[in-house]
Structures are given as structure tokens and as C-alpha cells.
């Protein structure tokens, strides 16, 4: 990017307090992918940014970029959608935070993928409108597909044979897909996967986002998918997600 003022459509991924009254922010933008910027005086000024820079906010961003600094200087932020229902429900907010942390960890600065922003905005909107838990699974598989990490699920990733219903199948994050029983030896740590879940996930990866509501996976598929996808994501980014731990904590606290 050349030095100058830019305009971008963005979702706020993270916000860190910096110095007396500034904030350091991470955005995912339509035009430039993931970028990081500083908003001077964001914590003090009542008028300039109001609540527009809270994580999950969908905004029109105006920022200044100069080669001298890694951080963009945030000049203006106009709210497109604040997803206000999310902010009054900690369960919804933590699910939304999971989506944005996932995007933040799975993407790199300087690589623009407009579909990622569309996906994120769509799913935040669905959560805001009261979407169900299975949204997170759909989001994970779609994000993996867009970023080119989609695991191989239509057959055994090692011997390329189709998975059969009469013998057990496993999922190996290390191999990047499903493995048949024979190939599962020596594939590192594996998780059992049912044919139904494998089918559900490969279908969810291709389905039109607007029609996702038509897929009604049962609880067993969802639980299996959660375990498999998170293991795979953890393997890809090489660490645990804070928001995943938070979701687990909240789940245990409500029992």
C-alpha cells in the first residue's frame, strides 16, 4: 500500500488499550484483508469513535497509512451494524468473539480475501438475529474452505479409498482429513469420525450460506464436528483459542 488515506469496509477483530487513552485495533477489511491500526484518543473522546470500535462492530473505516509505521492511523469509523443484541447476551457475545478470534488467528496481514469479510458479517448477523449453536460449526468449515484448509473428508486421505460403513473411520489433524482404520495406525493422534459427520461437514462446506438453515444436523453430528474441527484448527494455528476456553467455561458454569 502507498502512503495515503484509505477507505475500507471492516469488522473489528480485537481492541487493546494502549498508553493513556489510545487503542490498538485489529480489523478484517474487505479491501486489504487483516490490518492493524491505532486509534488515538479513542478511550477519551466521547464524540469521535463512541462505541464504534468495539470488537464485532461492522464499520466503514477511514485510515491513514504510511510506510514508516506498521500500524495504520484510524481517522474515522462509521457504524454499519453494531450487532447490538450480541452485546446484551454473554452467550451470544462469546460465540461472536469466537468467530472473530478464529478469523484473526487463521488469516495473515497483507492477504485480502473478500469472502472472509462477507462470511463473517453474514454469520455475525445470523447470531445477532438469534441463530443456533450449529452456526459455529458452519462458520468453521466455511472459513477453512475459503482459506484453502478444507480437510479431506470424502475418503481416506492416505490410501484414497472411500470410507466404508462397516469399518471404523478416524480423523487425523496431522494428515489433514479422514483416514480409514488401516491407515490410522501411525497417523498420530486420531479422533473417531462417523460417516454421517463426514458427510455433513463436506456438505456444509459447499452449501449456500443463505440456505444453511435447511441443514438440520443432529446433536451427535454436531458434537463430533466440534471436536474434530477444533482439533484441526488447533493443529493449523498451533495454539488454543482463548474464546474457545471461554465458551467451555460458560458451558460448565451454566450446568
Amino acid at each position, binding site marked *: 500500500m502507498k502512503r495515503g488515506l484509505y477507505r475500507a469496509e471492516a469488522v473489528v477483530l*480485537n481492541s487493546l488499550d494502549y*498508553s*493513556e487513552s489510545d487503542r490498538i485495533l485489529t480489523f478484517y477489511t474487505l479491501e486489504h484483508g487483516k490490518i492493524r491500526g491505532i486509534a488515538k484518543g479513542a478511550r477519551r473522546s*466521547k*464524540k469521535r469513535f*463512541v*462505541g464504534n470500535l*468495539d*470488537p*464485532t462492530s461492522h464499520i466503514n473505516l477511514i485510515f491513514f497509512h504510511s510506510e514508516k509505521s506498521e500500524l495504520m492511523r484510524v481517522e474515522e469509523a462509521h*457504524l454499519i451494524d*453494531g450487532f447490538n443484541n*450480541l*452485546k*446484551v*447476551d*454473554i452467550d451470544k*457475545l*462469546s460465540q461472536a*468473539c*469466537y468467530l*472473530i*478470534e478464529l478469523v484473526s488467528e487463521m488469516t495473515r496481514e497483507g492477504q485480502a480475501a473478500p469472502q472472509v469479510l462477507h462470511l463473517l458479517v453474514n454469520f455475525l448477523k445470523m447470531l445477532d438475529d438469534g441463530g443456533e449453536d450449529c452456526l459455529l460449526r458452519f462458520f468453521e468449515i466455511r472459513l477453512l474452505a475459503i482459506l484453502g484448509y478444507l480437510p479431506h473428508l470424502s475418503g481416506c486421505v492416505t490410501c484414497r479409498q472411500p470410507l466404508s460403513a462397516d469399518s471404523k473411520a478416524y480423523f487425523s489433524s496431522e494428515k489433514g482429513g479422514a483416514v480409514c482404520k488401516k491407515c490410522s495406525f501411525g497417523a498420530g493422534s486420531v479422533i473417531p469420525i462417523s460417516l454421517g459427520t463426514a458427510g455433513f461437514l463436506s456438505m456444509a462446506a459447499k452449501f449456500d450460506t443463505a440456505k444453511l438453515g435447511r441443514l438440520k444436523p443432529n446433536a451427535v453430528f454436531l458434537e463430533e464436528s466440534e471436536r474434530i474441527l477444533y482439533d484441526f484448527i488447533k493443529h493449523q494455528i498451533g495454539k488454543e483459542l*482463548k*474464546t474457545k*476456553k*471461554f*465458551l467451555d*467455561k*460458560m458451558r460448565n*458454569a451454566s450446568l
Partner: protein
Amino acid sequence: MQYAEPIDNLIKAISRLPGIGEKTATRLALYILNAKKEYVEELAANLLGVKEKVALCSVCMTFSDTDPCVICADAGRDAEIICVVSDYKDMMALEGMGGFKGRYHILHGNLAPLKGIGPEELRIRELLARIESQGIKEVILATGFDAEGESTSAYLAKLLKPYNIKLTRLASGIPVGSYVEFMDGATLGRALEGRREVS
């Protein structure tokens, strides 16, 4: 040429304080070096003093050198109203106003999914214990109005509903001394939503 080792150590220690870089740390360290010995002794004693004498009040979880703290021990304050705040600074701001005669409860943070701070990390269990044992009539939710503060309040509201006590939330809207024409949409919406009858 490097600073003498004791000076260098002091600079490093000071620069770990929030908002202080190496330049400022160096200036402070050199000031301390040149200051009177009594002042430095007093500073050192005060530094240790806050760590040794200040602990959490067992009732409201505020920082205090007595247990219970001055506010919790004050019989003149209404023990049936608890104002729940996110941190110590918020409590001091409310106290500075001087109009509140109830008691406080300090959570020491907000629920923050992105930072991994869940209900277990906040002083929520202590709040519930207080409500169960002390005959509380009203809980005022006075956490911030950013996303984390709002969701913490919403979480507490849900959690406290079964106790059948009066639950209130601080008002939010147009600040004192400002004009309607300069307000942003979100603030105006809030102000309109929380309007009250006059007379």
C-alpha cells in the same frame, strides 16, 4: 557507556510500569538518585506499604487496609443496597460524587471472551453469597457501557433474577452539560429509550 548497574536496574524496574517508556524511566531514576535520602526512604516504605497493608475487604472486595473496609463498617450507610462495579477506580469515581449512601461490590474486571476472562475469574461468587446471607433489597449494576461492561451486566441480571430483588442499571444517555444536536445516534437512542417522566 552504560549506566552503573544499580541505576540501570532501577530504570528497568520503573519502565515496567504502565505507560512509562525507557526515556521517562531514566528521568525518574535519575531524579530518585539525586533526591534527598528521606524522600527515597519514604517512597520505598510506601511502595512496600501498599503491598503489605492493603488487602481485599472480605465483604465488598475493595482494596482496604482494614477488614471490613471503611464503607462496609459504616453503620450510617444502607446495607440493603449494593452497587456492583467493575473495578476499584469505578468505585472511587462513584464515591467522589458523594451522593451514594449504599454499599459496593467490586468484581475486579468484566467478562471478556477475547481475553478469556470468565465468571470464575470475577468476584461473582462473593456477590451471590452476600445476596443470600445479608438481606439485600436492591442491586445497582454499574459496570461500563462498552460491550464487555454491558454483557457483564446482562449476565448478572440473568443470574440474579431468581433472587427476587430489585435490579437496576445505571442510566446511559446524554452527558450533563452537552447538547442534543452533537450526540451520535447510539447515545440518542439510549437517551430516548431511558427517558423518564418529569413532574
